[in-house]
């Protein structure tokens, strides 16, 4: 078992007075892929967004409990959220490249961190695009608009953009749900490559995807963490009835 990267203690989240997450505690291992599964509205995406404090942007959200990343509770008062988000990158459900060139998309993060030296930027852009397995497809058109890429390419570009900031953890919120099977396969392959270096947490609706890509799986239902264990155990021998019903497709 690898070291623990993220430790969540008794996390509860309310939207106004509605509890969306109830007393979640779990330990997410380093340099592994952890999948969050569960029916729509079960809180898995909300939970994912507590890990880089993206929920801070929504009014009326109240969070209790602790999320400890590398020994530090990210909900402490003096935590620098901007710095946290550099360490915990995020890929969204719908690919969201900026209306800028491929190059400027990837260079966005390094630039806001004050890197302006051309050679250094070139190096980061090339390295990140290679890591995201899209370099060969875009190297000839780095200065074309990112919006001219296909959906699958856009999502890999977004991954490259996140890698360029050099995070430890990458959160993926249903990264392939809007993509065709071939693009999905490429993303899944990429996830396997990336876990050598990064801790990856992926939210997915797709049971096969969770089974194929992840080392650990967490099943959420109605804001609670029902079950969390090694993926192969979870899918072959779930211990809770709800988990079994869900993964066998009896509800969802």
């Amino acid at each position, binding site marked *: 078992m690898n070291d623990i990267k993220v430790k969540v203690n008794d996390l509860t989240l309310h939207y106004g007075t509605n509890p969306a997450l109830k007393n979640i505690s779990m330990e997410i291992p380093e340099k592994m892929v952890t999948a969050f599964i569960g029916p729509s509205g079960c809180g898995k995406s909300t939970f994912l967004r507590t890990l880089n404090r993206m929920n801070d942007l929504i009014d009326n959200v109240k969070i209790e409990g602790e999320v400890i990343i590398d020994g530090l509770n990210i909900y402490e008062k003096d935590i620098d959220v901007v*710095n946290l988000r550099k360490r915990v990158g995020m890929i969204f459900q719908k690919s969201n490249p900026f209306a800028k060139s491929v190059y400027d998309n990837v260079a966005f993060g390094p630039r806001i961190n004050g890197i302006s030296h051309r050679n250094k930027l070139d190096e980061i852009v090339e390295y990140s695009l290679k890591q995201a397995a899209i370099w060969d497809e875009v190297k000839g058109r780095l200065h074309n608009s990112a919006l001219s890429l296909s959906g699958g390419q856009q999502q890999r570009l977004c991954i490259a953009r996140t890698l360029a900031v050099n995070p430890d953890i990458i959160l993926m919120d249903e990264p392939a749900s809007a993509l065709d099977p071939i693009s999905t396969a490429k993303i899944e392959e990429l996830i396997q490559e990336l876990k050598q270096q990064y801790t990856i947490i992926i939210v997915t609706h797709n049971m096969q995807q969770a089974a194929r890509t992840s080392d650990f799986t967490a099943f959420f239902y109605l804001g609670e963490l029902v079950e969390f264990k090694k993926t192969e155990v979870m899918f072959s021998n779930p211990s809770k009835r709800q988990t079994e019903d869900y993964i066998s497709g009896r509800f969802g």
Partner: protein
Amino acid sequence: MNRNVKDTIVESVAGISVLLIIFIILSILAITIVGGWPNLNWTFLSEFPKDGMTKGGIFPAIVGTAVMTLIMAVAAVPFGVITAIYLAEYASEKSVFAKTIRFAVKTLAVVPSIIFGLFGLGFFIGFIGKNMDGIFNGGELRWGQPNILWASLTMALLTLPVVIVSVEEAIRTIPKDMREASLALGATKWQTIRKVVIPGSVSGILTGTILAVSRGAGEVAPILFTGAAYFLSDLPHSLSDQFMSLGYHIYIMSTQSSNVDATLPIQFATTLVLLLLTFSLNGIAVILRYRIRKREK
């Protein structure tokens, strides 16, 4: 009454109203073009008025209008953009302060333009200008009288709501995804606004500017007491000079001239120039706005 008959009546009334509007617009255009076109030539556009404005051109009025709207835009656009950014990005919908600003912007938009003129006279000339003279000029009169700067600033106040509304609308069409992408990369809120929101709102900022310029170019009342001149033999050289403007020129030729009939052809041609100017500016704004709307979908 039979339903079909009612429908027919409503349809006819609506149809007649539309035809009436089209008729009015076409009439204005037709009268202006027929009266103005024959007199519109290069000399008319490039010469000063002559012989008590019964001859010559409208060059100083064109320059005056252009310079006035330019200064106006320089003042109104940054101010309007900053206000729009505040309203769209920082203010919470429920905050009393934001509600107050919105109320003020809406009110500003419906204040009659002559009131802006009076305000400019009282505030810029009577208060700011007088005090500037007292402090910098030892009481000698320079800024405490109508000039192009005060007229432009007065016009800027009038057009401010136009800028704020257009820019805020454009900012709000930038998808939440884009902001989240930027924030998730560790950008601060201000970096997100500067690098994602403002570049994405450029066409909205342009639309607002053009609408403001076209409004400002046509208005007369705000500059009536604050800087427009009846006739000048020279172009303005400094911000403390008065200026001639197209709208005001039409007004004085039709009301103040000793020989109104003799100025008629010039009036028509001046009106045509002003109409072409504002129509084309509005046309550009419409095209830009259409592009923003398309992006929204």
